[in-house]
């Protein structure tokens, strides 16, 4: 933590939300990646956040951090499309198990979080400037 902890904390929030948005982008961009039979399918990725540990004596928190990016192990979704060159012997094409509805709601959440943290950063900046302006 620097001299201006509120700004640091808002920054950790922005970092995590950015990672979250990046992950959602990746999931959406790869949602239609059909796999050739026998090859690995794209797996949905989910960000897990956790509160950053604080130094002893700091009861006010240190922000947030990415704990892990969990990669799903769910099997792909099989769609019947016998004419597709990627179809297997049964005429089924394997698509990633990405739930677009879930991705979109997560994106709205991540955006709202990003905005809130950006707001805190701006306000903290104004608050610190008010203090720095004090002179005898």
């Amino acid at each position, binding site marked *: 933590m620097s001299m201006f902890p509120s700004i640091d904390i808002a920054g*950790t*929030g922005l970092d995590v939300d950015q990672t979250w948005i990046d992950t959602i982008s990746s999931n959406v961009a790869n949602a239609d990646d059909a796999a050739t039979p026998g090859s690995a399918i794209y797996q949905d990725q989910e960000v897990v*956040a956790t509160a950053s540990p604080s130094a002893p004596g700091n009861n006010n*928190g240190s*922000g947030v951090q990415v704990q892990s990016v969990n990669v799903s192990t769910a099997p792909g979704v099989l769609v019947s499309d016998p004419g597709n060159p990627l179809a297997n012997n049964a005429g089924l094409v394997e698509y990633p198990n990405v739930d677009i509805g879930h991705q979109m709601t997560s994106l709205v959440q*991540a955006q709202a979080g990003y905005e*809130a943290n950006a707001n*805190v950063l701006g306000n903290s900046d104004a*608050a610190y400037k008010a203090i720095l302006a004090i002179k005898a």
Partner: protein
Amino acid sequence: MDGLNQTEVLMADAVQSINILNFALDAIQQRQQTIANNISNQDTSGFQANVVDFENSLASAMQNGGTASATTVPEGLASGTNGNNVSESAELSLESQTNLENQSVANSLQSEFSMLSTAITG
């Protein structure tokens, strides 16, 4: 009371006010840090929001003497399905309020310093 004593009394008052404002400014900083932490963790599973309380302690210290302190305690709102109890709207409104308090305390400190400065240099 001659002129010099009056100045001394004024200066002692100013120093007392500066000490109180200084404490308030520190406590407000802590509150801002806690709000920033709550907002940054608004999507963290299991996270519980904290609040900083100092007004009661400060009021009591000013009335009865003693040392004021700022304490960080759990906010204690009901948690959502992921065990998180951060209310973004509550945090953002508290943040705006805290910023105004910060500004007003900073302005008061500035006035005290200007007054002291005038008392010293005339």
